[in-house]
């Protein structure tokens, strides 16, 4: 059952990918693929990466992730990612322990620097995984962010 559903999703992904070539032509404004529903609805980072065609990315030290060791508040966790990998076209962020880990893809074109600052919700302590697309290959790095329940009640 699950297998079937997955293949359907995968097929959907493939269709979306096909469709994207068309939309990309129609909408010159986009620097990367269309909003990938199956990736965003995946319950694990691995499934989301598969849906995005990012299988087995290579570990890289050229990805710099700036995020707090301990988040002051899980509702707003600042995350900054810089890729020092030449030819970077996109940065994708996955918060592994969130119910839907895939948080977003940020595409760079026409002279924009491969850097992004974003703020995300984190339900619990989790690795923040980043996947960078560059020169047709994928690279990855991760940083753990602790989320504690603070405050004193009352």
């Amino acid at each position: 059952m699950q297998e079937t559903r997955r293949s359907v999703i995968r097929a959907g992904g493939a269709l979306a990918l096909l469709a994207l070539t068309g939309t990309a032509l129609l909408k010159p404004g986009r620097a990367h693929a269309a909003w990938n529903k199956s990736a965003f609805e995946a319950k694990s980072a691995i499934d989301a990466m598969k849906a995005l065609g990012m299988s087995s990315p290579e570990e890289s030290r050229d990805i710099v992730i700036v995020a707090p060791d301990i988040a002051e508040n899980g509702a707003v966790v600042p995350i900054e990612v810089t890729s020092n990998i030449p030819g970077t076209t996109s940065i994708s962020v996955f918060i592994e322990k969130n119910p839907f880990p895939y948080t977003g893809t940020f595409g760079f074109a026409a002279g924009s620097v491969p850097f992004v600052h974003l703020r995300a919700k984190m339900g619990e302590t989790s690795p923040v995984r980043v996947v960078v697309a560059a020169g047709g290959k994928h690279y990855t790095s991760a940083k753990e962010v602790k989320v504690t329940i603070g405050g004193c009640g009352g």
Partner: protein
Amino acid sequence: MRIGTAVTLVAVTALAAACAGMQPDPRADAIAMMERDFHAEGIAKMDRLKEDAVQAACNKYNDNPPADLAKKLQGEQYAGVKWPQDGNLLGDWKSGEKIAQNGRGMTWRDKGAVGGGCYNCHQIDPATTAFGTIGPSLTQFAKLRGYGPDIQRYAYSKIYNAKAYTICSQMPRFGHAGALTEQQMKDITALLMDPASPVNR
């Protein structure tokens, strides 16, 4: 309702102002203004703004009333401690830990008291790392002081009414205020006094 209050208070303020004309009295002005500018909300009624004898002494003397007054008031507060009928002061320390962790209760959003909020101010079980420092650490409470009936009575009555020992203590009078039940206070006493409690291990 509000208008009525406002009118009365204009009178009060006018009176206060008249007196203040002779001698500035910010304390009287502040109390009059509070009476006018606060309103009852939920269980938090306006009577909460009225000082009792202990609060009045602490407010008047900047938390440092004359020794004889302090002694007299402390005696009265101690005399008001209601001891458990069954004579047993120790409840269940595990339940006590939960009550100590819970800081909710008695605000205008609450229906009554829920917890003691002990960790807001005290370190207790060393395994609980989120603790405040307004009060002293209670880790090893009975191990340091002894497990005997006198210390049990001290612990119970201190929770019941901290002002029985230190008249202007920052600690609430949980029993006196009706904020914790007898069973809850027994459970917290057990958390401090039970040899099996992590506090004493």
